[in-house]
């Protein structure tokens, strides 16, 4: 055992000196390898963290939302539907919601306008999200004007700003009074955007949804789980799009690694011949190449993942944000809660380390199994 350890020690020593001897080749491999792990790792960490963030937010979302449909498309819901829904057994509470989108031609951005249930701003006042205050450089006391549905200009005073901590959902949000909302959009008092429903027993959600459709055939109940699934699919699609691009980068990397790591130079082949001729076994040479490959892989993988972690969680994934955070002009400025999925990390490890190691070892093995007398005849 002691001899085996001493042997590995000597072989490792030789491996390190081999790596240093081929500095340029190994540094270029390390840089490309690290870059690929960084890009793939960033995409994976970002999409996983975003999905988790969305799930955390949706945890507090209403269990059911009821919308009215007209010709198969959304239509404001009549207020009197509320009483019908409230009377259904199992419904704890039902409330109307007023919210909508406003397109700001100055910024080319869409804002979400909403009337909160609790403490709505007084008529004439609004509370704005951090994203809006940032792009419009608005502060408390400033006036914000909207063009109403009939073309008239409505002005409001900014009385507050939503906290930056909730920016993922509130970047483009504007809170206003019920009356102001209706004037701005021309929404009659008899209509609302939708109705949120709470039920006593979660297991009865689908039954109650069925009852609502039966009593109010022109409505569509949407259950929270369906929203969660939609968000999941959206982020998966966004992540997937980037992952597809990055898989192409990975393929390019594999070709690069094959070329660089596997393409043994005449000098390297000669060296293997010398080592065999002076008494090294094929296994010893493979050990050198395995250590070489493992060291480059391990260093690159660790550096790439650490850089990806810093990029996503400390620098808010600034490279990917435009592609992955959504289509809005007002990109939320927020820190994602650090979260790592060990499964994805393992997948990434095998996607990068295995091809590289194979690329390194196979040609070395092919070179190492030649008769050592080849070096005498060269």
């Amino acid at each position, binding site marked *: 055992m002691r001899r085996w350890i001493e042997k590995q020690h000597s072989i490792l020593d030789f491996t390190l000196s081999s790596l240093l001897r081929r500095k340029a080749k190994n540094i270029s491999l390390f840089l490309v390898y690290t870059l690929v792990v960084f890009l793939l790792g960033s995409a994976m960490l970002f999409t996983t963290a975003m999905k988790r963030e969305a799930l955390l937010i949706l945890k507090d979302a209403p269990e059911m939302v009821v919308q009215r449909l007209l010709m198969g498309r959304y239509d404001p819901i009549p207020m009197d539907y509320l009483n019908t829904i409230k009377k259904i057994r199992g419904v704890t509470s039902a409330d109307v919601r007023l919210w909508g989108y406003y397109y700001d031609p100055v910024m080319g951005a869409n804002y979400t306008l909403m009337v909160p249930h609790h403490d709505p701003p007084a008529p004439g006042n609004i509370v704005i999200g951090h994203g809006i205050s940032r792009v419009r450089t608005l502060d408390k006391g400033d006036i914000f004007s909207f063009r109403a549905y009939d073309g008239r200009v409505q002005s409001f005073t900014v009385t507050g700003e939503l906290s930056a901590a909730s920016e993922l959902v509130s970047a483009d949000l504007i809170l206003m009074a019920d009356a102001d909302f209706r004037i701005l959009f021309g929404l009659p008092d008899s209509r609302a955007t939708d109705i949120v429903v709470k039920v006593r027993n979660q297991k009865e959600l689908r039954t109650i949804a069925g009852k609502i459709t039966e009593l109010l055939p022109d409505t569509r109940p949407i259950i929270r789980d369906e929203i969660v699934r939609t968000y999941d699919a959206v982020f998966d699609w966004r992540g997937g799009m980037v992952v597809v691009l990055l898989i192409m980068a990975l393929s390019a990397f594999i070709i690069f690694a094959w070329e660089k790591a596997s393409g043994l130079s005449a000098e390297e082949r000669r060296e293997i011949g010398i080592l065999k*001729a002076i008494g090294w076994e094929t296994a010893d040479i493979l050990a050198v190449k395995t250590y070489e490959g493992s060291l480059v892989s391990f260093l690159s993988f660790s550096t790439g993942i650490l850089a990806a972690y810093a990029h996503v969680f400390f620098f808010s994934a600034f490279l990917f944000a435009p592609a992955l955070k959504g289509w809005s002009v007002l990109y939320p400025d927020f820190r994602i809660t650090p979260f790592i999925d060990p499964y994805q990390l393992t997948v990434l490890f095998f996607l990068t380390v295995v091809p590289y190691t194979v690329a390194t070892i196979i040609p070395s093995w092919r070179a190492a199994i030649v008769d050592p007398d080849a070096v005498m005849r060269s």
Partner: protein
Amino acid sequence: MIKLLNVRKGFNIGQSNEFIAVRGVTLTLAVNGITVLKGPSGSGKTTLLSLIGCMARPTSGRIEISGDNDILKNRTIDSVEVTSLPERFLTEIRRRTFGFIFQQFNLVKGITVLENVLLPSYPLGEKYSFVRPRAEMLLKMFGLGERAQTKIEWLSGGEMQRVAIARALMNDPPVLIADEPTAHLDSKLSSEFMTIIAQLKNSGKTIIIASHDPLVFDADSIDRVIVVRDGLIDGDGK
């Protein structure tokens, strides 16, 4: 004693470029002394040398290493038929029995003189604190003590030759095999090489050299000259 029985070695067998380098050689090489395999280029002497040194297997025939325990160092058996041994055992016999000095020196570039000399000892798993003084002692013996930390590429041809000899002696093998050792040396350095070889012979080493250099096969220290021509033994004497 090293015995070759009707040994043949061919390359690219069964292909259009088939070539037979050694055509049925039977030969016995005694322990101790210097033997030279003499012959023109392409005569098959390097191939014969690599077969004797367990670097390659013959296409047919047998090679046996036998006799005293000096050759089968650290082995309890009297003789071994090497041609049928698996690679691992053949390698072990090669590194414990033979030290090689190549025509092109075949030193590893980019590492120091000391590291080059240490290379054959790595697979043995001996302690660094044990092998390093041995390597340094060998370098001193060949006047290279001061050059231990120099990179190989900074050495002169003569110095490289001496590093190659030191490396061949690293595992203290009983047999030294040298393939055209003076091919890249001038007359002065060739004479120096032969002096070193004579000293090694006096210290009890068996030396087998392939060469067509008169400075080698005409040297006083040579005990036996075997003439190789067209893959066959064409003469044997002093």
